[in-house]
């Protein structure tokens, strides 16, 4: 891990002002922010761990917990909302038995929401492992989950 984190720190020239960008790259590499990684960054950049924690919890893009094999993101933007995004989110919650921001016990799925992806024309939108699916219908929920199972 140290090697990987070091390469990220080098990219940002060990500048503590780049902490948000550094955390983004760490998250991209591990899918979440591992505790040991934050400790290491704190030592190397001489930023108190509490400050890193404050940033990691302030910005909603960061996760302190490992995320599942598959990431399901439901867009909750206004256009998606008026087209029924809440019903779709409810259905994912019911089927996976988790709340948004959580991961299933078998570590298969994480469910998240996003404020807006800016694809409002084709809402409601669900992003499954990076693939955008527009005009998502309630019955697509089982289609998506069953295909992966």
């Amino acid at each position, binding site marked *: 891990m140290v090697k990987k984190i070091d390469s990220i720190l080098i990219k940002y020239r060990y500048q503590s002002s780049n902490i948000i960008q550094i955390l983004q790259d760490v998250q991209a590499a591990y899918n979440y922010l591992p505790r040991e990684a934050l400790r290491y960054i704190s030592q190397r950049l001489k930023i108190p761990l509490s400050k890193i924690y404050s940033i990691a919890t302030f*910005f909603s893009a960061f996760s302190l917990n490992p995320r599942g094999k598959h990431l399901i993101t439901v867009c909750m933007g206004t*256009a998606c909302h008026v087209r029924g995004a809440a*019903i779709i989110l409810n259905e994912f919650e019911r089927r996976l038995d988790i709340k948004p921001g959580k991961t299933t016990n078998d570590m298969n799925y994480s469910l998240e929401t996003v404020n*807006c992806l800016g694809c409002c024309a084709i809402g409601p939108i669900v992003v499954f492992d990076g693939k*955008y699916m527009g005009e998502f219908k*309630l019955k697509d929920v089982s289609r998506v989950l069953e295909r992966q199972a």
Partner: protein
Amino acid sequence: MKPSLIISAGTCGLARGADEIIKAAKDYQQKRGLKKAFNIKVTGCHGLCQAEPNVLIVLNGKKIFYQQLKPENVADIIEKTLRKGKIIDDFLWFDSKTQRRYVDIDEIPFYKKQNRILLGNNLCIEPKFIDDYVKIGGYSAIKKVINDYTPIDVINIIKGAGLRGRGGAGFPTGRKWELCREEKTNTRYIICNADEGDPGAYMDRSLLEGNPHSVIEGMIIGGYAIDATEGIIYVRNEYPLAVKNVGIALEQAHKKGFLGKSILNSKFTFDIRIVRGAGAFVCGEETALLASVEGKAGRPRPRPPYPAEKGLWSKPTNINNVETWANVPQIILKGPEWFFSIGTKTSKGTKIFSVVGKINNTGLVEVPMGITLKEIIYDIGGGIPGGKKFKAVQTGGPSGGCIPEDLIDLPIDYESLTEAGSMMGSGGMIVMDEDTCMVDVARYFLNFTQQESCGKCPSCRLGTKQMVEILDRITEGEGREGDIELLEEVGKNVKLSSLCGLGQTAPNPALTTIRYFKNEYEAHIQKKQCPARVCKTLTSYVIDPDLCGGCTVCAKNCPSNAIIGEPKKVHTVDQSKCIKCGICITVCPDKFRAVKKMSPVVR
């Protein structure tokens, strides 16, 4: 000129399968050896999102618009249209208002009434290639500025044009630059605010994806005018394609000498880097944005001092929005008089709106200021789908408000929208029909701002929380007498006593819906009824015995076994078991359509 196949490939186009169209077209061209016969261009979005994936075929001076395509259509398009000039009717745009098909893109009503100064270039630019931008006059504005104008001249040109900030507040851009320049210092910064957080607004994404150089050139001109050496584009991480295209564009601008040391062999040095946001809405507020760039949690601070005096690292900083920057090169090239002649008395130029929600022609619309809401919704937007009735349009995102039908002739500019209780904001326009519950909309936005409140000011942190609680109970049928007045009172106090724009505007969605749709609030509170049948607790699902065909599909799909009935016999919903997930409505075959929503609830 060689015919071209121009494929719209912004994020929404790609989500709808533009990538497959691109692949199919390139494969076909390769296999048949047609490289010399026509060009393929992969551009940013063409604006008419409803029609994605779409292509534009430029052939003998004609601009043929084909829409909602599938990869298997590509061979036909190439053989019939590109090679033989034959129009394929099935792929043409059908306008729901005029009830006819259109061949030429400029004839389509959606495009005809627009003035696409900024977005129009998306059609002729492949964002990956700087030469495409240069070919249409790109980077000649910065050449003109460096050769002919002093920084003060540039500021005066922007002032003379009457350009105002497109991020929402509408501060005069030239004046902002002037204030920043007047500060005595050696270091100044330029920032492009691309933290487009308003849900329902995506014009900045489209510009950055489709025409990143126009924004970059604007920033370089701004840097020259205020004597800055460093620029930052602060962009949402939720926009991966925009981040990628801007990155490529910056690299190319560097190689061509438009960025870096001694730009165009002058003494002017300027560079731009990208900083990605991390999913905090409040970072669209300029002081929060600055904190985030400095590597801190994005919490706003009091102004004054304004960023023009004390901005990034306490140095004078000029922050403008993406769309504002994109206007700058055009004003330089075409002159301030040209820009000043477009729009209304107080609001000049064009504004891009994202017209979304319950509307036929969803898309990005660039119109001169002063156009009426009616023209946007009906002439350009093609009206409301499914014969439903228009109810309201929400502008200005979570800071804005809902404008009802009787104000539909309102000419749109900064002042008129504020007067109506809403605001220009970044230009999101969410159209709502009779099936939209206005109390639910208010709850949605308040819930949004409550979650995004950074927590610094108690009035915002606690006030929005209180408002959400009241709205929650109203939508859940627990509303009390006096709740409407209480919402108004709390709302006014949150507005008055919060530090930044988020708190100062957060109550607007509730206040405007109370102002224009009080009867809906009253129905929820007094009759326990949601007139639009949206609020779950106040709505029941029932099966119309006259329409039910007894096909058992609903019963089979019901997750809570709440539907009772034998094959070929009328089914009923056991309300005590129903969890109101709505699956029965979606699975009931079109030939029956027997499941209905009712409010108040059926016992």
